[in-house]
C-alpha cells in the first residue's frame, strides 16, 4: 500500500471542547505550568483525523469535516468523493465525539434538546414513539475503510457492501431547527440516489437520523414518505445507541451496510407506540428479515447539514 494513495477523513461535532474546559480550569486554579504542552493537538478539531492519519501513514490527504451531528456521515461522503476523483485508492473515514461533560450537557439542556426521563434511562431515547421527548447524549466513534472496488478485488479483500452514492445539502433555513418543509433533506436523498443510479423503488431500507426530538422525527418521516413513499423498512438506531453526535453518522453507516449484507434490519429500541403522524413502516420489537437491494442512511446536523449515504450489496 502506497501511503500516497491512502487518505483519512474523520469528522467531529464537538471535538476537544472537554479538554479545553479542563485546561482552562487548570490555568485558572493552578497556573500556567499546569497547562499541558499537548493542549493544542488535543483541542484542534482535526486532531482525531490527524492521529488516525499518522497511524495509517496516510499521505493522500487527511481531512476533518465539521457538520455537527452529520460529521461522521459527511466524512464518509468526502472519502467517497476522494476515491471517485482519483485522489486515493483507500480512505479510512468516520466520526467521533466524547463530550458527556458539564458544559456540553448544559448547552444541550438549555437548548431543551434532551430527554428528561431520568427515572428510566434505558427507555429514555424513543425515536418515532408517541411519547418521545428528546435525545440521549452518547459518546462513541465509527470508522469505515472505503476502497476502489478494483483495488480491493486485486488484493482479494472481502467487501461488506458498496457505497453507491452520496448526497449532501444544506437547509439554509435556521441554525438549529430543521426546515419543516424538509426540502434540504429531500435534496440529500435524491442526490445520493441519482449518483448511485438508483430509483426510489430500489430503496428497501432507511436507517433514519431520528434523534427522538418531537419536531426532528416528524420532519424526517415526512421527507422519507414524500421522496421514497411508505414502502421502505425504517429503523432508528439512536433508540439503542443514544446520540453519538459526530460518531453517529459513521456508526449508523456501518449498521446500514450490515443490514444490506445480512438482510436484517434491527428494531427501533423503545418504540412502543408509533406516533400516528410518522406514517412509515418502522421496525419495532424484533429484527426484521428483508431482502435488500439498496438502503440509505440519513444524518442531519445543527447548521442545517443533511447527508445521505446510499449502500448496495456487492
Amino acid at each position, binding site marked *: 500500500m502506497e501511503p500516497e494513495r491512502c487518505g483519512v477523513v474523520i469528522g467531529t461535532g464537538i471535538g476537544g471542547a472537554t479538554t479545553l474546559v479542563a485546561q482552562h480550569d487548570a490555568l485558572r486554579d493552578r497556573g500556567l505550568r499546569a497547562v499541558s504542552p*499537548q493542549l493544542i493537538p488535543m483541542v484542534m478539531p482535526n486532531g482525531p483525523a490527524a492521529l488516525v492519519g499518522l497511524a495509517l501513514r496516510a499521505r493522500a490527504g487527511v481531512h476533518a469535516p465539521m457538520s455537527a451531528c452529520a460529521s461522521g456521515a459527511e466524512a464518509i461522503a468526502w472519502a467517497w468523493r476522494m476515491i471517485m476523483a482519483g485522489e486515493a485508492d483507500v480512505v479510512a473515514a468516520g466520526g467521533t465525539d466524547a463530550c458527556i461533560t458539564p458544559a456540553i450537557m448544559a448547552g444541550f439542556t438549555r437548548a431543551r434538546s434532551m430527554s428528561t426521563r431520568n427515572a428510566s434511562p434505558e427507555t429514555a431515547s424513543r425515536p418515532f414513539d408517541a411519547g418521545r421527548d428528546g435525545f440521549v447524549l452518547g459518546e462513541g466513534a465509527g470508522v469505515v475503510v472505503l476502497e476502489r472496488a478494483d483495488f480491493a478485488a486485486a488484493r482479494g479483500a472481502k467487501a461488506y457492501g458498496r457505497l453507491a452514492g452520496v448526497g449532501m445539502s444544506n437547509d439554509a433555513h435556521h441554525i438549529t431547527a430543521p426546515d419543516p418543509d424538509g426540502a434540504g433533506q429531500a435534496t440529500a436523498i435524491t442526490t445520493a440516489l441519482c449518483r448511485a443510479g438508483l430509483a426510489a423503488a430500489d430503496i428497501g431500507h432507511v436507517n433514519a437520523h431520528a434523534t427522538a426530538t418531537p419536531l426532528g422525527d416528524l420532519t424526517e418521516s415526512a421527507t422519507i414518505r414524500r421522496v421514497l413513499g411508505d414502502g421502505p423498512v425504517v429503523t432508528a438506531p439512536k433508540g439503542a445507541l443514544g446520540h*453519538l453526535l459526530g460518531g453517529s453518522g459513521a456508526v449508523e453507516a456501518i449498521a446500514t451496510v450490515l443490514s444490506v449484507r445480512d438482510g436484517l434490519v434491527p428494531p427501533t429500541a423503545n418504540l412502543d407506540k408509533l406516533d400516528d403522524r410518522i406514517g412509515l413502516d418502522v421496525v419495532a420489537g424484533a429484527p426484521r428479515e428483508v431482502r435488500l437491494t439498496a438502503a440509505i442512511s440519513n444524518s442531519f446536523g445543527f447548521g442545517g447539514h443533511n447527508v445521505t449515504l446510499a449502500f448496495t450489496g456487492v
Partner: protein
Amino acid sequence: MNSLPRTGIEVVVTGVGATTPLGGDVPATWRGLLDGRSGASALDTEWTRDHGFPVRIAARLAAEPELDYVELKRMDRAEQLAVVPPGRRAGTRTWARTRWNPSGAAW
C-alpha cells in the same frame, strides 16, 4: 440534476470499526442493535447534582479505550475513541505502535 460524469470507479466498504455505548467493537454493537438493547444509563455525578441538571441520563461507552497511560494523557477523549478501531485492527493495544496497513484484511 446532480448527475456526475461516469468515471467507471466503484467504491466498496472493506473495513468497519467502532466503539459505542452498545459495545467496544462492531460485532458487539451490531448484536446490541439487533437485541434492541439500550446503551443509556443514569448519569449521577457531582456536577449533575450541584447544578440541578434536569437531564441525568447518558449513553457512555461500553468499553473504555485500551490505550496506555501516556496516550490517554496526550489525547482528548474524542481522539482516543477515533484511534481505537485502527489500533484494534493492527492487533496492538497501543496506538503508538500501530502502523496499520489498510490493505491488510478488513477490521
